């Protein structure tokens, strides 16, 4: 079932509402206001909405300076431009300078669709994860997004949110007990653990259903926060199921697969298979087509699970 609300609407409307009571919140965009549905924020808080124009490096620097005045700036752009384009500014002016800036990168990986290879980052979480103390978060659906925003605001430091702009498959409802940095077990199982993020969570849940029909009992974990990683959840899953499949709409090199493997090889060695982009650039195409091209489908997860179980 697809959520009724787009992720960007939830982000923009929630921020607009919180900003009514919290005048520290400011929103900056680099000429993509229309793409991020932030007009509601602009109308409600015109002084605190700053469209810097097409200048991401300057946007990040301005945000860092505003945070030195106690503001909590949210900066928006497409994920490649919110991260790769202004990496040194994020690294030095935000992270190294310990500035409380929240970075939102939209349309990560294959959901960039028709914008193609220039706009389709499979490396945004990798490079953001390499910045010390940067929180790296990929919301799964609208319900999670809504619960995450107050926690992102409350966290006293830089956070990168990798946001699918449009309607995500609904995994959770309002009863979701969400904590940034704490993985969510969607389904318990004993034979293999599927650790998924973003659009891959829905596919992992469906893969678990198919695996069940084949007599395989898969645990499904939503690892929405790639950093800090929920090490205890990974250790417990490795111990219980003895095999792991990671599922990400991102390059497995330095991505979620790598992050999980870092924990597993040190703490609890078990076989791992990584479903994700295998060191490739993006290209134009529909999500469904690109998911076939890059082997991100439900069937790819099923195949990886069956293969990794054989290695136990």
């Amino acid at each position, binding site marked *: 079932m697809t959520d009724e609300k787009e992720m960007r609407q939830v982000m923009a409307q929630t921020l607009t509402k919180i900003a009514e009571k919290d005048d520290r919140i400011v929103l900056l965009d680099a000429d993509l206001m229309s793409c991020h549905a932030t007009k509601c924020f602009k109308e409600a808080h015109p002084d605190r909405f700053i469209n810097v124009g097409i200048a991401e490096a300057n946007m990040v620097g301005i945000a860092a300076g505003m945070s*030195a005045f106690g503001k909590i700036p949210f900066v928006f752009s497409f994920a490649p431009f919110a991260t790769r384009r202004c990496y040194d500014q994020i690294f*030095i002016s935000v992270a190294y300078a310990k500035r409380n800036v929240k970075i939102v990168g939209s349309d990560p990986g294959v959901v960039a669709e028709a914008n193609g290879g220039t706009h389709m980052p499979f490396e945004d979480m990798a490079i953001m994860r390499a910045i010390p103390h940067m929180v790296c978060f990929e919301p799964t659906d609208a319900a999670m997004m809504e619960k995450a925003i107050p926690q992102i605001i409350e966290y006293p430091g830089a956070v990168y949110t990798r946001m699918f702009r449009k309607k995500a498959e609904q995994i959770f409802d309002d009863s979701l007990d969400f904590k940034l940095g704490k993985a969510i077990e969607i389904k318990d199982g004993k034979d293999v653990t599927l650790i998924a993020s973003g659009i891959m969570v829905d596919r992992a849940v469906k893969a678990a259903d198919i695996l069940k029909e084949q007599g395989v009992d898969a645990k499904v974990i939503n690892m929405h926060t790639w950093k800090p990683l929920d090490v205890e959840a990974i250790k417990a899953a490795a111990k219980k199921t003895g095999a792991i499949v990671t599922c990400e709409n991102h390059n497995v090199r330095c991505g979620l697969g790598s992050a999980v493997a870092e924990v597993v090889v040190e703490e609890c060695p078990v076989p791992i298979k990584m479903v994700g982009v295998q060191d490739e650039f993006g290209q134009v195409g529909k999500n469904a087509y690109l998911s076939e091209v890059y082997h991100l489908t439900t069937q790819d997860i099923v195949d990886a699970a069956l293969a990794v179980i054989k290695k136990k």
Partner: protein
Amino acid sequence: MEQKQLDSLTAKARQLRNDAMEIMMHFGSGHVGGVMSVMDALTVIYYAKANIDPKNPAKVDRDRVVMSKGHAGPALYAVLADLGYFPQEWKATLNQNGTNLPSHCDMNKTPGIDMTAGSLGQGISAAVGMALAAKLDKNPATIYCIIGDGEAQEGQIWEATMFAGSHKLDNFILMLDNNKMQLDGWTKDINDLGPVADKWASFGFYVQDIDGHDMAAISDAIDNAKSKNGGKPSMIILNTVKGKGAKYAEEKVFCHNLPITEEIYKNETGRE
């Protein structure tokens, strides 16, 4: 400004140059050229113009100084130590293990530093963000930002300049330490900045083009930047000499980063 105060500022700048050399001497080398060239402007800002309180470094309505050319850290450390932001003993610790005085400015380590800088082109954007936030808060702070002429080759300088001009940030005073040199040679030979006054004027700045070692001119320019800006951000072009006041550096001409021994320090300062 009265002659007496000008004389006092001139003497203070001499002392601060000596202090900065002392700081760099303890490490054995430093960005002597750019530290010396900017010292007169820093002296006027900190000792005659800026609303600051060393006893209360976090004062909300204080003026901010962003050293975007972050490698001039030792120039600021000389000032901040003299004003009592931190103990004088720290001056001997530049770049030493565990120091609070790194070669490039760090707001989280050094009391009185308003922004971390060192990756060139970035401090100016943060300063613009501060000017914007001050306007939002109706905070009377003036935001000073010092960039280098070599630094102005960074594209981000022009992104920030365009934004400050476009948003009429008249609480923003940008200064160009125009010492005409960069690490590898003359700026005009490497990537010529061209007519800097015209450039900033065309971006919507109120521009003043002065001798960056003339205390009266610096003082007047800052006053003008506050009172005659016509609702625009200000650019004060400080025409400076790299290494100014350190004879061995001036004679060497290309003096971006130099060794500074105890002997050099004593020769230059007359101190024992």
